[in-house]
């Protein structure tokens, strides 16, 4: 019998995105630039994270008009963001037919205790994580794909690096533990025990793990790939730079050829100005998007 929305079908789409770049876009024109540059998917937004950060106030799901126009403009998968815990925004995005929902800390959380029960949906979800415990909690709730949180809208890769290193170090630690230590490890990292067992046995997450939050250059993308992620999200980094067409293409190529330093040198040449960056220590802890999520 045919079965839709199975776990294999949900995680399978994430598998197909691997080695690719998912770009934030706010207009059909930007979506076409992203597709033309070789993006493997786009994230349809009303504003990129840097502008959300600048605007302040409450950031919500994008207007469906924006999302529909972007879905009509490209043939690659279209993702959209719902607020943490806002399952009705997610229901609306599913009704629009988006291919993936990002339950995202870039938007203002709608629930200060609980995330969406993502098993309730046919459409797959991606969620951010800073460490293995957080990643496994999200997968336990039904996320079919994980990404680092990084610090969105900063053009500063340091937080994404920290989060990827945290996850990888936690995975390595679990693989060396005897079985009797794994229950305590699950307790300490507040992660579902069955998923802790999976990671200990396989040495990897049960779903695809992308890098996101602060990636602004081809070198940043290749750095994250060499640290062990499966692909790249670029938010503000492309359309806040001086030459989005060229930079988008360079980041796509750097993600495929992440180990080829000569190629990376060529790709990094003459890209114009990157987005202006923000040093993390200048952002008050309460303003840091990565702190959102439980």
């Amino acid at each position, binding site marked *: 019998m*045919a079965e839709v929305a199975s776990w294999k079908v949900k995680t399978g789409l994430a598998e197909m995105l*691997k*080695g*690719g770049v998912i770009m934030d876009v706010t207009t059909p024109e930007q979506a076409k630039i992203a597709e033309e540059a*070789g993006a493997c998917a786009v994230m349809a937004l009303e504003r990129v994270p840097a502008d959300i950060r600048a605007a302040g106030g409450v950031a919500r799901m994008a207007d469906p008009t924006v999302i529909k126009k972007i879905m009509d403009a490209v043939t690659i998968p279209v993702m959209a963001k719902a607020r943490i815990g806002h399952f009705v925004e997610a229901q609306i995005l599913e009704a629009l037919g988006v291919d993936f929902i990002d339950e995202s800390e870039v938007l203002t959380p709608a629930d200060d205790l609980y995330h969406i029960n993502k098993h309730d949906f046919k459409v797959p979800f991606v969620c951010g994580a800073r460490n293995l415990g957080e990643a496994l909690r999200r997968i336990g709730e039904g996320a079919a794909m994980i990404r680092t949180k990084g610090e969105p809208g900063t053009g500063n890769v340091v937080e994404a690096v920290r989060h990827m290193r945290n996850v990888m170090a936690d995975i390595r630690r679990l693989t060396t533990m005897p079985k009797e230590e794994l229950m305590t490890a699950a307790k300490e990292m507040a992660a579902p025990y069955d998923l802790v067992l999976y990671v200990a046995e396989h040495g990897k997450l049960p779903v695809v793990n992308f890098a996101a939050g602060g990636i602004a250059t081809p070198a940043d993308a290749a750095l994250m790939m060499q640290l062990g992620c499966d692909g790249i999200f670029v938010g503000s980094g492309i359309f806040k730079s001086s030459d989005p067409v060229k930079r988008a293409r360079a980041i796509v190529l750097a993600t495929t050829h992440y180990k080829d330093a000569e190629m990376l040198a060529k790709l990094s040449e003459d890209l114009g100005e990157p987005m202006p960056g923000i040093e993390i220590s200048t952002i008050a802890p309460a303003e840091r998007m990565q702190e959102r999520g439980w």
Partner: protein
Amino acid sequence: MVRMSKIGVLAIQGAFREHRKMLEKLGADVIEVRSAKELTDIEGLIIPGGESTAIGKQLAENGFGKKIINMARQGLPIFGTCAGMILLSKNIDQSNQYSLGLMDTLVRRNAFGRQIASFEADLNVKGLKGEKVRAVFIRAPFVVKSAPQVEILAEYKGKIVFVRLDNLLASAFHPELTDDPRIHEYFLKMIP
């Protein structure tokens, strides 16, 4: 057992790692191919699922696709899954994107619909013994029309989803996402 063959897996973007795992389980020697110069000394090539536009852009540059076309014309066995099927096809419905144009087929992208319409189902595959094949379709294409010399190996609800033309094999579904090695075994048997 299949003898040790050296198989290239196109690793521009997509599910290349899963193909690699499946081939290694079957005893093949696998190399990941990211540029034309890595196409040497292979006895077969897999073009994985992923985004056909994203993969096609890189094939269009630096003589990469041209080299694959030449090798295919000299008989190199090639297996394309999902995006790989699209990239092998001569014609793509409502699209002028890059393809290798090797198979006399007309393929429609996202033919079953967007992600919420993605599904798994059991297929009868011509020439495969035993149980049906559990096929995973993800934003999958199907073949709308094919030339008479193209052999149809499987259909789902009347839509053509698995085809062969001489040294070329193409599936709309993802055998690399399951534990069933029979489709990959079929491909390895195409290697002379």
